[in-house]
C-alpha cells in the first residue's frame, strides 16, 4: 500500500512537470503548426538559472522568478529569430529547432560547467508528512499543487477570456481567424512566450524534485513532452494534461515493477493510442497526415 501510494504521487508529480512542458508545446503546434524541438532548452535554462539564483540568494521565490524570466526571454528570442524565418516549413523547423536545442544545451555547460548542479529543497517545503504509517514527501505534493494551479489557470484563460477565444478558434482554423481581421502572428508570439514561461517554471520545479539538474535533461523532457502532446491530441490542453498524468504514472509504476521496459512504456502507450485514435485522445487534427 505504502509503495503504491508513493509511486502514484511520484507519477502525478512527474506528470505535472511534463504537463507544464507539453501544454505550451501543444498550443504552439495546434495554433501555428510549428514543431518546436527547442522547447526542452527553455526548460533546461529555467532549471539552471532558477537553481543558480536560488542557491545564490537562498530565496526559492526569486529562483522561480528567474526561471520564468529566462524562459520568457529565451522564448521571445527563439520565436523571433529561429522560428519566424522557417515558418510554414516543417523540415526546416525540425532542423533548426533541434540545432537550437543542442546549442542551448551545450551553452549551459559553458556558463555553469559540465558537472551536474545540486539542487536543494527549500526549507519550507523539505521533509515529509506521515499519514498512518505512509510517508509523503512535501515537495512532491507542492509540485502537484503548482501543476494543478497552472492547469486551472490555463483552462480559465482558454475558456473565459478574449485571448482564449482567439486561441481556440485559431487551433481550429487559423486562416479564418485572419480573415476576421485578427493578427494571429501576434497572438502566436504571446502563446509561445506563455509556453516558454511554463517550461521555465517546470525547470525550477524539477530541480529540488530530483536533487540535481544536468544538461541532457532538456532533450529528455522535451521528447517526453512531445510524446504527451501526440497522445493527448495536438492543440488540446486538457488532452495534454490527461496524457501527461498517464505517462507520469505509467512511467513511475513501470520503473518500480518492470524497470527493464520503463523506457519503452511511453512509446507503447503512444503506439496504442495512435492505432485506435490517430488524432490523439482529445485532438481534432490527425498526427500523421
Amino acid at each position, binding site marked *: 500500500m505504502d509503495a503504491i501510494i508513493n509511486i502514484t504521487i511520484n507519477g502525478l508529480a512527474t506528470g505535472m512537470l511534463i504537463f507544464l512542458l507539453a501544454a505550451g508545446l501543444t498550443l504552439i503546434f495546434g495554433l501555428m503548426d510549428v514543431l518546436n524541438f527547442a522547447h526542452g532548452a527553455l526548460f533546461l535554462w529555467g532549471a539552471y538559472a532558477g537553481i543558480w539564483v536560488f542557491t545564490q540568494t537562498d530565496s526559492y521565490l526569486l529562483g522561480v522568478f528567474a526561471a520564468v524570466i529566462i524562459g520568457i526571454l529565451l522564448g521571445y528570442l527563439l520565436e523571433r529569430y529561429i522560428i519566424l524565418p522557417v515558418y510554414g516549413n516543417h523540415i526546416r523547423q525540425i532542423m533548426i529547432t533541434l540545432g537550437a536545442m543542442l546549442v542551448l544545451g551545450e551553452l549551459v555547460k559553458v556558463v555553469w560547467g559540465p558537472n551536474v548542479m545540486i539542487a536543494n529543497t527549500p526549507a519550507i517545503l523539505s521533509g515529509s508528512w506521515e499519514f498512518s504509517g505512509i510517508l509523503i514527501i512535501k515537495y512532491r505534493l507542492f509540485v502537484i499543487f503548482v501543476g494543478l494551479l497552472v492547469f486551472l489557470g490555463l483552462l480559465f484563460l482558454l475558456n*473565459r477570456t478574449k485571448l482564449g*477565444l482567439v486561441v481556440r478558434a485559431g487551433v*481550429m482554423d487559423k486562416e479564418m481567424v485572419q*480573415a*476576421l*481581421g485578427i493578427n494571429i502572428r501576434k497572438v502566436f508570439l504571446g502563446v509561445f512566450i506563455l509556453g516558454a514561461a511554463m517550461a521555465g517554471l517546470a525547470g525550477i520545479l524539477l530541480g529540488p524534485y530530483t536533487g540535481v539538474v544536468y544538461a541532457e535533461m532538456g532533450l529528455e523532457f522535451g521528447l517526453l513532452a512531445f510524446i504527451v502532446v501526440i497522445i493527448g491530441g495536438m492543440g488540446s490542453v486538457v488532452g495534454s494534461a490527461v496524457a501527461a498524468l498517464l505517462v507520469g504514472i505509467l512511467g513511475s509504476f513501470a520503473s518500480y515493477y518492470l524497470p527493464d521496459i520503463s523506457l519503452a512504456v511511453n512509446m507503447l502507450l503512444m503506439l496504442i493510442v495512435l492505432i485506435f485514435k490517430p488524432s490523439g485522445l482529445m485532438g481534432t487534427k490527425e498526427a500523421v497526415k
Partner: protein
Amino acid sequence: MDTIIETINVTKSFDGHEAVSDVSLKVSKNELKSIIGPNGAGKTTLFNLLSGQLKPTAGEVLLSGEHVTSLSPTYRTRKGIGRSFQITNVFPNLTCFENVRLAVQSKEGVYYNMLSHFTSHKKINDLAHEVLSTVLLDSKAEELAKNLAHGEQRKLEIAMLLALDTEVLLLDEPTAGMSIEEVPKILEVIKQIKETQNRTILLIEHKMDMVLDLSDSITVMFNGALLADGKPEEIMANEQVQTAYLGGLYNESS
C-alpha cells in the same frame, strides 16, 4: 455616387494561365453588385484579389481611393473589406455565440484588454446577440456550430461578417450547397442587410432569378475577363451576355 472599390487592370495568372485578365471594375458605395459567369470565369479569384487572399500579377486594387494592393487580408478586413467563402467557414467547436463574439471582439480591437473575461463586456455581447437575431439564429446561440444545419451555418457565417461591421461585404455563393427550402431564408437575410442602406455588397451567385431581383447592378465575367457591367435590365438585354452565359444557362435549366 462615390466609388468604394475599384480595380485597375488587375490580372492574376497561375503558371501562365490567366484566371483573371485585365479587369477594371468600379463598385459604388452602398450598392449591391452581383458577379455572375460560368464556372471558371474567375469570379472567386477576383474575390480573392479584392480580399487579399491573392496578390495580383499586375494591376491595382483601391478601397475608397486608397491603394490596398499590397495589404494582407487581416489589414484589409480592418480597413473595411469582409468576405465569406464558397465553402462554409465557421469554427465547428465553438458555439454560435462564440463564433460571432470572436468577430465582434476583432472589430472592437482584440488587443485591448485581452485578458478580461469575455462575457464581461455587456455592449459586445449585446452586439453579438443583435447580429445573431438579424440572421434569425438567436435561438441557436448556445449550440455548437458543427451541429447546425448547412443553411444555418451559412447564416452564421454571414452573421460573423456582419459583426465585423465592414463597409464592404463580399459574399461568395451564399446559397451554395443549400437545400431549396433554405434558400429563401438566406435571401431574406441578404435583403434585410441591403435595406439598411449602409453596406456595399458584392455577391457571387449562380441562381439568376435571385440576382436579378436583388441587384442594383450586375457584372458578367467570362474566361477571366469582364464581359459586361450594368443594370440588371441592360445585362438581360445584352446579346453578347445572352450567347456567352445566359443563353447557355437557360438552355441547361429548361
